[in-house]
């Protein structure tokens, strides 16, 4: 995987997330920072130091690997102290650091165990502990939670955040899970095909995606993409197709003048569509009709798939809304929160 044109300035103490589908180059980027991958062009700085030709051992980084990469023949204590022992740290100092960190990570009782005697979550903690004792300039995490089961993953997510708040060490974290990216990062870097798509705070990425790809990648269920045409009537702009005709609020429409009559993609998130009975006061020009195809009650919400002409539109409704499969109903889109994407360049128009 060759990563091109990757320019990113990471602030001291920042928690940066590289997110993207598998094979998008995020791990390659991380490994380049670690020095495990050869960099053929460009420069990597840690602090003020150019590290392109610095071997991994001298970069003062710590990395947590997806499969933990604990040394199978060493017990937990030796695993954690392996890096320190090389640095000629005095024995009692090592002992103190390792024991303190192990206690903090909740693995104080496991110091004499071998990795194969540990559960997945415990191994994860040891791997983290091994990184923490080194007190490095940068933490690199390569999908550290992806081998854990769902419940543990959520618990560890919170612990990692808490850890970062306490240690304030600059962290670069790779994941393919957009939920992890949204919940953990100060800033997230969305990558696709070895190219950065967008770098911004999670909420910004969610609210203002730069292109269709980012819009679809962040958010779950994913944003609806509806092919349509921009029409102009009575000074207002409309996203219009055979099966819907939705008014675009004037505030959003400023950049649309060039697109009148052209094919575009309307993007609207499932949570920004409600059923008419829930909509309260609404603009009838921002509503469309559809027949309920599938409903997925999740307890806290209800995901409803609606057939509208050729489109299947996903909506996220209040769980108490009664909808019957096959029923035709009217749905209201919060068009102020929608997006228009250029059909050719896939860039966001607004």
């Amino acid at each position, binding site marked *: 995987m060759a990563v091109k044109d990757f320019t990113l300035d990471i602030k001291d103490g920042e928690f940066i997330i590289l997110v993207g589908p598998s094979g998008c180059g995020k791990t390659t980027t991380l490994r380049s920072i670690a020095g495990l991958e050869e960099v053929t062009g460009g420069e990597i700085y840690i602090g003020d130091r150019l590290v392109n030709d610095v071997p991994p051992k001298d970069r003062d980084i710590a990395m947590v690997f997806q499969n933990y990469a604990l040394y*199978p023949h060493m017990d937990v204590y030796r695993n954690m102290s*392996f890096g320190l022992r*090389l640095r000629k740290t005095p024995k009692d100092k090592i002992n103190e650091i390792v024991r303190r960190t192990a206690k903090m990570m909740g693995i104080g009782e496991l110091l004499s165990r071998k990795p194969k005697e540990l559960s997945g979550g415990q191994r994860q903690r040891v791997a983290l502990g091994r990184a923490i004792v080194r007190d490095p300039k940068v933490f690199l995490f390569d999908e550290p939670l992806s081998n854990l089961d769902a419940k543990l993953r959520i618990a560890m997510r919170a612990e990692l955040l808490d850890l970062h708040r306490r240690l304030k060490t600059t962290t670069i974290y790779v994941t393919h899970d957009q939920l992890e990216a949204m919940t953990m990062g100060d800033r997230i870097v969305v990558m696709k095909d070895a190219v950065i798509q967008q770098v911004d705070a999670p909420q910004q990425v969610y609210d203002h995606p730069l292109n269709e790809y980012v819009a679809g990648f962040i958010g779950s269920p994913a944003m609806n993409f509806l092919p349509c045409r921009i029409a102009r009537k009575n000074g207002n702009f409309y996203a219009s197709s055979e099966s819907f005709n939705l008014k675009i609020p004037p505030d959003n429409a400023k950049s649309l003048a060039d697109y009148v009559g052209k094919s575009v993609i309307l993007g609207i998130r499932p949570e920004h569509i409600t059923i008419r009975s829930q909509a309260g006061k609404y603009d009838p020009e921002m509503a469309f009709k559809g027949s309920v195809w599938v409903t997925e009650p999740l307890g806290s919400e209800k995901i409803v798939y609606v057939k509208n002409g050729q489109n299947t539109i996903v909506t996220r409704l209040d769980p108490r809304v009664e909808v019957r499969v096959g029923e035709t109903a009217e749905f209201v889109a919060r068009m102020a929160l929608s997006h228009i994407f250029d059909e050719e360049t896939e860039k966001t128009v607004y």
Partner: protein
Amino acid sequence: MRRVMFWIAVVIVLCAFILPIAWVYVTSLKSPEDIFRPEKLAFLPTLYNYKYIVTVRPSLLEFRNALIITLASTALVMGVSLPAAYSFARFNTGGGHLLFITISTRMFPPVVAAIPFFFLFRDWGLLDTHLGLILLYIYFNMSFATFLLYGFFREIPEELEHAAMVDGYGRLSIFRKVIFPLIKPGAAITTVFCLVWAWNEFLFAFLFTRRVARTVAVGLAVFWGSIEIQWGPMAALMGLAILPTLAAAWFMQRFIIRGLTFGAVKG
């Protein structure tokens, strides 16, 4: 019923393996008159045959030769094969072709190599020398050992090395502190295989040695003369010659299980 069948099968297999060995030891303890009277189950054990191979026909030299050649060739093979296999496994050195060429020396019948080697060794004065046989055994064992070790190295996840690099270690100390401890069972098995093979090797030892460097395996065949076969002393020498290999087999069974399930201990 199934259990009965199971034990019958076990007994048959055990007999097939143990009876020949038992025959060797029983025969070695028989006096020449008793050897050809198998119907006589009870006999007076004697150490006559063992005395014979020590005093009448000294065979200890052959033991020493075999020991020198076996140990030296195995040590050199491991010295080269360990780094070679590591390099093949980790850096894909030679893009797979080099590894294939290495293994391909094992694919033709070894005797094919005997004639060219014989002329070469004759010209270089290596016939009937320890060095000659050591070189030959290196040639034959190296490919095998490299291939076996290659498999073991492949089982070690690359991330372990990366973790050690990030932890601050250089390539050499990583090999010493992380890789080698993990490869130990595999290296032990490979070493034992090389030792046993070199110890037992007959064809080349027979063709390339006369007197000075003759090994035990060849020495055994010498009892097979044109006038008579000296079964008793031959059995005695056999009994001694298989002791090291039996020890190796015993040693190996502890490791071979671990070696074969090596992949299960991933970090």
